[in-house]
């Protein structure tokens, strides 16, 4: 009796503790989700602590990460400047800028920040402007509340609700013209925990420009509205001008480093097919949002859009940033350089291993089937003049590829025939080379050559003509080679 009661008791206890255990399991997971739940807070409800001035940077650099701070009241001080700059060598353009650069200053925020935006229009500017930030939830992206005349300042405030990389631009009529003159930039809203750290971060923004003159036409080039409407760009560039990311201004990285590009496209019209020659993108946040694509060669970045692009550089060399609508890269300026320095890794990329000649007829010495029967036909010897003419033709089709047009040969590869001591020393030897080819080291005019010349498939008459031409050109000794001489050499080894 006691036993059964005990059993029941035990069973009850067991089931009770099972229940307890199960419950605690659930509560545990509930607890952990609460920890992760920090990111599940409605961004609107994120509280800000204190306030700070935003660090704004000029391209291609970006401000420091926001990972180590909480959401804050961020004061952004943005000045609009209309000023002349250089579009390309000898080409000036009047840019309208946010912060004095194209693209405008990079703004780095974190989700939940309350941004107090001070937009200042410099008194020397001619036009009113405003700003539309794609990170803003509100009418016009802020444009409605930020219309400001020259010599005045306007303030509005917004809360960053969604992480991502966003474009900002001026939206004053005519909007296309304001954007086309360079009024665009990027604002980053980092997630709660900040973006994972990388070794190098860079800010690159593509834009298309429309000038009265053609690409490269010198002098100050005014904006051309009709071309802009026709979407007929003269310049497609990174960071506002041709060569902004080349030469001394090239981006840099070391082998083994991770690179993140904050890449934007200000437009106004063209979509970018962004590619880095020599690299594959490890991660691309598609359109600057939350979706991530991996192992991407070329990514589409719409006008008024952006993408975060990460890759690790493994070998040294110049990586070339381009818009792969390729004529834009090479004829309109959509080209930048990322210079990678450091030790090589031959396994990943070896560089050129070797180079040599490639002869489609076949490789080594060829022999023609021997003609045993002597030429029954009488030998009609051409005149020297005729031989020169025919020889010149033959030289042009047979010999010049290696020995070059004026017999100068190619250093370290093919010996010269012009004023060549080796040639002039022994005419029979020369004929034999033409008939049977030559390999091994020889010295001509003091230089060593060690290559292969194939036997030439020419008749005796042709050999005579071409060799007469050679001997009577370029300072050689003027020997006239006859068909008989050639025949003699050809038959020499048979006897």
């Amino acid at each position: 009796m006691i036993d059964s009661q005990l059993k029941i008791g035990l069973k009850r206890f067991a089931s009770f503790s099972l229940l307890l255990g199960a419950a605690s399991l659930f509560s545990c997971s509930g607890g952990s989700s609460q920890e992760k739940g920090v990111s599940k807070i409605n961004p609107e409800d994120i509280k800000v602590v204190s306030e700070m001035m935003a660090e704004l940077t000029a391209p291609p650099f970006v401000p420091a990460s926001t990972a180590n701070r909480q959401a804050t009241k961020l004061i952004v001080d943005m000045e609009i400047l209309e000023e002349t700059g250089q579009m390309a060598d000898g080409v000036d353009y009047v840019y309208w800028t946010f912060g004095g650069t194209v693209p405008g200053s990079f703004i780095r925020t974190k989700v939940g920040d309350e941004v107090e935006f001070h937009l200042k229009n410099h008194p020397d500017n001619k036009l009113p402007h405003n700003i539309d930030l794609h990170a803003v939830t509100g009418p016009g992206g802020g444009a409605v509340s930020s219309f400001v005349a020259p010599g005045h300042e306007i303030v509005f405030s917004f809360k960053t609700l969604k992480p991502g990389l966003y474009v900002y631009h001026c939206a004053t009529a005519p909007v296309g013209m304001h954007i086309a003159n360079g009024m665009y930039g990027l604002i980053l809203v980092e997630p709660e925990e900040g973006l994972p750290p990388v070794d190098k971060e860079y800010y690159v923004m593509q834009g298309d420009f429309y000038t009265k003159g053609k690409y490269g036409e010198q002098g100050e080039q005014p904006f051309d509205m009709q071309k802009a409407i026709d979407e007929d760009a003269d310049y497609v560039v990174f960071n506002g001008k041709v060569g902004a990311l080349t030469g001394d201004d090239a981006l840099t990285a070391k082998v083994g480093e991770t690179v993140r590009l904050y890449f934007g496209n200000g437009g106004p019209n063209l979509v970018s097919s962004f590619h880095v020659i020599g690299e594959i993108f490890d991660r691309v946040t598609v359109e600057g949002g939350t979706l991530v694509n991996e192992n991407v060669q070329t990514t589409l970045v719409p006008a008024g859009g952006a993408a975060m692009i990460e890759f690790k550089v493994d070998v040294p060399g110049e990586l070339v940033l381009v818009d792969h609508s390729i004529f834009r890269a090479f004829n309109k300026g959509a080209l930048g350089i990322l210079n990678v320095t450091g030790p090589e890794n031959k396994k990943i990329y070896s560089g050129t291993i070797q180079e040599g000649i490639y002869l489609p007829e076949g490789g080594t010495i060829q022999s023609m089937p021997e003609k045993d029967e002597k030429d029954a036909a009488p030998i009609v010897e051409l005149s020297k003049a005729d031989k020169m003419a025919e020889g010149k033709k033959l030289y042009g089709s047979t010999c010049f590829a290696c020995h070059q047009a004026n017999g100068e040969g190619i250093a370290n590869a093919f010996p010269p025939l012009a004023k060549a001591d080796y040639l002039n020393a022994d005419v029979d030897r020369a004929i034999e080379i033409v008939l049977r080819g030559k390999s091994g080291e020889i010295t001509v005019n003091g230089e060593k050559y060690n290559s292969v010349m194939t036997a030439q498939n020419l008749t005796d008459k042709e050999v005579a003509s071409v060799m007469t031409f050679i001997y009577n050109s370029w300072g050689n000794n003027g020997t006239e080679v006859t068909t008989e001489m050639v025949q003699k050499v050809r038959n020499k080894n048979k006897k």
Partner: protein
Amino acid sequence: MFSKFVTIVIIIFFSLISYGQKQDMALIKGGTYIPLYGSDSMPVKVDDFSIDVYPVTNAEYITFLKENPKWKKSNVIALYADGAYLRHFKDELTLKDGENPNAPMTNVSWFAAKKYCECQGKRLPTLDEWEYVGMSDQKNADARSKDDYNKFILSWYEKPSTYHQEIGSTFENYWGVYDMHGLVWEWTQDFNSVLISGESRSDKDGNQDLFCGGAALGSTDLMNYAAFMRYAFRGSVKANYSVRTLGFRCAKSLK
């Protein structure tokens, strides 16, 4: 007798000079036209009037300040002029070094410009009057569809610091009036008849009849864009604003 005659001559001579120191005015024959914002059903009629040949200069405004000390920088009230008023002046009546007395007067508010014209027995031109005179080039009363005319204006928008140039340095138009384009923006009597919110993309709908012209954007965009900027500028300023690139000239009704 002769000495009396000389006196009279001298009086006449000096009176002519002193009137010459006032602005020359050009007579504008009235007409009807459709401005940028207008529709075919509402052409605008402009009566005959006269308008200053040149914008008001720094030197002329200084004379006005001497006679009307209430408008000096230290005396003017904030309702009538903001902090940028006369910013290019060194002190109450002197320009900063490098400023040209014959350049157009800028950094004046609408109230100040209005008062100046009133003191000359004139007034500010209305927006319609201003646009009517401004739409001409050297040869034509209405040059708005001409490429050269529009390109001149659009290229001016990109030139910095044209407020330093002397009056008369741009073209003389059909009416004999100079510098309607190329020097500075200009106040008009009813500059606040422009309903732009600054959010230009939504300006095209709602009860914003003003920009139904915006729907007509097509092959004549050049013309619209050149004028657009003027309207956008007018929509961005308030009456007490003083702007470096904004000056004025006066007009007078003839009736």
